[in-house]
């Protein structure tokens, strides 16, 4: 299997009972579970419990405990609401009898209404970007190669951040931009595209909180605290999308980040939000979330 097929395989959960699922673990080069994997598997668990005419339009989640990469993750889905227009599901990801992640997601039957969207910023084409893993390696990130292996399904072209190559835009003090896509084709199921995007959305968002700070991310303890996505319009995760990320605030060892996701034709297709723990690494301290 190529890395994209491996990702699709990770998203193909085993159904244990009606609303109970089990997700495989990948072969990880790092002794941890990647948060985007848990978010994407939880999303798939939620999706499996709703009729196909309802599409996911938002998810809100908290990371509670670091995942154990040595055992599968159980996803337990609770049906919070079955309305006419909207359905709501709560998914608890658990290991060793304890919740490690908790996601609530909302589904909607398609309808039409008012239309507007932010304008895509003026950025270079994907071909003008730099390979993210290469950028991390040159930046002295000790974990670049391990992360590159973990995110092997993703093609990420870095366009710059606040300290390197990106001019401040729109009053933002800390920004990072990149083009992203899955390396190989994902097929045509829109639910797989939503899940693959969810997987990718956790790769770099928290990093934008450090764009303005002169620190080495591998010397900084970073852990996602929450993760939120609003899906505005359908799109393919295996075709280039711009991840326009900015951090309005950092304080109290926490950093806040938002991301807008545009397809190459300028359509705003999703918005993401994440708060994370960012603290200078001290010996022996452990993080609260999925990333150590």
């Amino acid at each position: 299997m190529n890395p994209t097929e491996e990702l699709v395989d990770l998203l193909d959960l085993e159904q244990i009972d009606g609303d109970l699922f089990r997700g495989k673990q990948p072969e990880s080069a790092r002794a941890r579970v990647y948060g985007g994997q848990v978010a994407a598997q939880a999303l798939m668990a939620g999706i499996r419990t709703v009729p196909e005419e309802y599409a996911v339009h938002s998810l809100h989640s908290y990371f509670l405990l670091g995942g154990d990469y040595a055992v599968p993750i159980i996803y337990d889905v609770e049906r919070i609401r079955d309305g006419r227009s909207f359905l709501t599901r709560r998914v608890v990801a658990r290991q060793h009898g304890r919740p490690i992640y908790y996601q609530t997601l909302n589904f909607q039957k398609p309808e039409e209404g008012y239309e507007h969207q932010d304008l895509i910023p003026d950025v270079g084409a994907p071909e003008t970007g730099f390979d993210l893993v290469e950028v991390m390696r040159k930046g002295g990130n000790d974990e670049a190669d391990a992360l590159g292996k973990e995110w092997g399904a993703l093609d990420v072209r870095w366009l710059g951040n606040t300290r390197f190559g990106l001019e401040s835009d729109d009053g933002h003090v800390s920004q990072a931009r990149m083009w992203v896509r899955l390396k190989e084709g994902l097929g045509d199921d829109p639910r797989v595209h939503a899940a693959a995007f969810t997987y990718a959305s956790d790769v770099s968002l928290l990093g934008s909180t450090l764009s303005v700070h002169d620190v080495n991310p591998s010397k900084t303890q970073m852990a996602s605290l929450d993760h939120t996505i609003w899906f505005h319009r359908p799109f393919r995760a295996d075709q280039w999308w711009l991840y326009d990320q900015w951090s309005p605030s950092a304080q109290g060892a926490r950093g806040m980040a938002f991301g807008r996701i545009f397809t190459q034709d300028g359509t705003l297709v999703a918005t993401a939000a994440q708060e994370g723990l960012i603290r200078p690494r001290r010996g022996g301290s452990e993080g609260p979330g999925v990333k150590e």
Partner: protein
Amino acid sequence: MPRDADELLALLDLEKLDDDLFRGNQMPTTRPMVFGGQIAAQSLVAASLTVEEPYVAHSLHSYFLQPGDPSVPTVYDVENLRDGRSFVTRRVIAQQHGRPIYAQTVNFQKAEDGFEHGESMPDVPGPDDSSVRPVSRKQQEELHADQWNVADIRFVGSSAQGLDEDPRHPGRQRVWLRVSSPLPDDQFWHRAAFTYLSDMTLIGAAMSPHGISFGKGDAFVASLDHAVWFHRPFRADEWWLYDQVSPSASAGRALVIARVFTQDGQLVASVAQEAVLRPRKGASS
């Protein structure tokens, strides 16, 4: 509905039924459903009552599930999701008539230091500037019944009127807000009161590019979710700028993201809300 800080505090002062179980009162309202900000604020209070110092609420995420019934109290059932060393997490289910009407998750942190940055406040006229339009109590009551009476609201402008056109963001709105009379000093009450007020005016930013508004009754609006990130301590009873951008509307939904600045220019909170925003046509909604 609350007309001043004292009445708001009374509404937020929950009755403890059992460990992790609370009851929130209603106040008389002319509206058929409970104001979302009230449910969000009462939930935050319920969660906070189960958490000991020194942990302080720094974020909440929530979904509105059913319209609240203003004729009966709301029961808040708190579940303990995590008691960590640095972080504590609670989930609150608000229920009436045996059904969940609202689900909120709240995260608390023990204070520590770290990296610091914050976006600057945009250049806007202050709340007392002659160009800034106070929204009178009478207007508020006409627009939103009586549930907004606890707020002083001054309208700076929106994409429809008063703000310069910004092609990057077609849906914008800026409003000064505060609780209309003084609150106690404890930050606990300021976070709760802010959460109450944070559900006001937001969707106006999404309506502004479409020639619709709350008052005209030409659109159906219902909050779907509500998230607040508290960055820095601040007083909800002193003016704060609610700087709102709606990045997207589509498929009968609209998203609004807002920054909250104190008058001295500090970024103190971020808010996000998605809502149903539908043209009101005939009988269908």
